[in-house]
């Protein structure tokens, strides 16, 4: 057999493997939230990490059964809010002509100031309705709005980041039964990528969880 034929055979096998549906995990279907929660506790105790529950409505207490840790999202939002508040203050100070670091540079080292000058557009010390150039009462609305804006951004995009969104596909969508996850059925999906996942043993575990139906997912 020539090496060319061998390569060809290898390629064909690889192509066949790529075309064939790949085992992606298990989908367990339950009829009641109570059965789902009981099963979720066992999956949690088995130490899986890449698994999830899918329910048509929020099920109270499910996060405890799944062993989900409290989210760090509030801290991200706090960081976003504080950033916005500071940014609002600096923005207004700068645009009103208060440029503390730049003035310091000017005082200490004229060369640096001259070198940086073209890249440092300056604000205008512009008196509006007799108010001081820089006064906190006038600055609070912008600081407040930027706090809200960056908090909202941090909450929205932080949530996407923590959930690794956007995600356009998931193996559960290959299942026809999964459509009922938005209607009247409760599901647990365990992904094959989980380090604890073993096709035979996990299947045996899944069969013992009291699911109404266990399905192998393909990707």
């Amino acid at each position: 057999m020539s090496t060319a034929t061998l390569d060809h055979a290898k390629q064909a096998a690889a192509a066949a493997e790529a075309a064939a549906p790949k085992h992606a995990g298990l989908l367990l279907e339950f009829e009641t939230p109570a059965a789902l929660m009981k099963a979720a506790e066992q999956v949690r105790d088995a130490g899986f990490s890449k698994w999830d529950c899918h329910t048509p409505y929020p099920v109270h207490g499910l996060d405890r059964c799944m062993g989900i840790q409290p989210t760090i999202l509030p801290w991200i939002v706090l960081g976003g809010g504080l950033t916005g508040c500071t940014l609002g203050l600096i923005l207004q100070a700068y645009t009103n002509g208060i440029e503390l670091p730049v003035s310091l540079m000017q005082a200490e080292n004229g060369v640096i100031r001259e070198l940086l000058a073209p890249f440092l557009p300056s604000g205008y010390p512009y008196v509006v309705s007799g108010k001081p150039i820089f006064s906190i009462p006038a600055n609070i609305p912008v600081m407040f709005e930027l706090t809200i804006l960056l908090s909202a951004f941090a909450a929205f995009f932080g949530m996407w980041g923590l959930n690794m969104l956007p995600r356009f596909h998931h193996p559960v969508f290959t299942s026809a039964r999964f459509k009922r996850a938005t209607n009247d059925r409760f599901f647990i999906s365990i992904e094959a990528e989980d380090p604890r996942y073993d096709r035979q043993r996990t299947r045996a575990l899944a069969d013992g969880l009291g699911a109404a139906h266990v399905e192998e997912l393909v990707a």
Partner: protein
Amino acid sequence: MASATMTAPAQLGARRIDDLLPRINRGVQMAFVVGALLTLLSFVVPAFRERVWATYLAAFTFYLGITLGGLFFVVLQHLVRAGWSVVVRRVAEGIALNTKLLPVLFIPVAVGTYQGHLHPAAAAHADHGGGHGAAHAPADPGHAAPGGAPAPADPAHGAGHGGGHHAPHAPLKAKWLSFPWFLGRMLLFFAIWYGIASYFYGSSVAQDQDGDPARTSRMTWWAAPLMIVFALTCSLAGFDLLMALDPYWYSTMFGVYFFAGCFLSFMATLIIAFYVLRRHGLAWEVGPEHYHDMGKFMFAFVVFWAYIAYSQFMLIWYGNIPEETVWYLRRMEHGWLLVSAWLIVGHFVIPFLALLSRFPKRRPELLVAGSAWVLFVHYIDLQWLILPQPEAARAVPVPLLDLGLLLVLGAVYVRSTAANLTGVSLIPERDPRLRDSLAHENF
């Protein structure tokens, strides 16, 4: 599912305040005696005497605010068909029903106003004749500070109005602020509030007997128009009681400011009330989930108060019109600047940071500490609104008198609330949404 918390009504804990009444009465009597002794000092101590009317107004407004907050809470829960709040609603109804007590507590305010100690334009001898009404109520030391030092000159007012004029220029406004109209309006408001409160209380208590869900539908229907009535009357009462202390000054935002303080102090009171009830083995249905929601409400209104307070200040500061800025100028002199600055920290920064996280809202002890703080700073806020106005009272702070009047009125108030809740369940037992409330969970 949280089936464990979905207890059937028969398994609920103790829900009657009746057995607790003797203990409540003992505490109330003690508070009343101590408070009355402190208040009676005002007959001998000049510093007390100078402050007594203004301090009484502060204490009265404090309890009025809690009552109005309760009334708003009850109407709001029906308006939005809230499920979570059913277990805490009965106590709120009991607090709102204290509107029947208000006309009695109001009597000294009416007397003080008539005699010219409080609202200059509503004093009996204020001159309402025509457009240049030059009433002399507060300008006359004999009336403004009976037995006390002469009223200090008012540079801000003097500069703004050329001195001496204490009734508004506009004849219609002078009429509006005059004593008969002031008294008539307040009595009308008391009647309206009592009507609203007794309707919701009566309907809710009647539902305990017959369990008729149609009552809930009717209350929801009425909640919408009554909410409008409440908004108007609450705003106008704020104008009459506090804003009219300076008949020239006006702020269209003042009613909202008044309301924000009302609801804030009510939420704090409700949290403390349930903490006390639970310590005596009552109302066990109210758990961390409900504390969490009450805490959220309180936190929200800490922010709302700051938002309104700042908005009002910023607009006046920016507009820089003498007849508006005079009100804030008065709160930046005679040491009031310190109180003004302190309010920003104590009424906003501290409770904001303390209540921001989920942690304290789910721990009754911490939340009660926060509520006590909120009530304290709310009272300081009321003093800040009232005391810089009557000239006689400006100089001397007399915390003992505040404590005395707060205790006297508080004793009457607590006794009245307990009476409202005697003989009825502390939980609306047959409300159609009770199960929602019992099974309520926050995310």
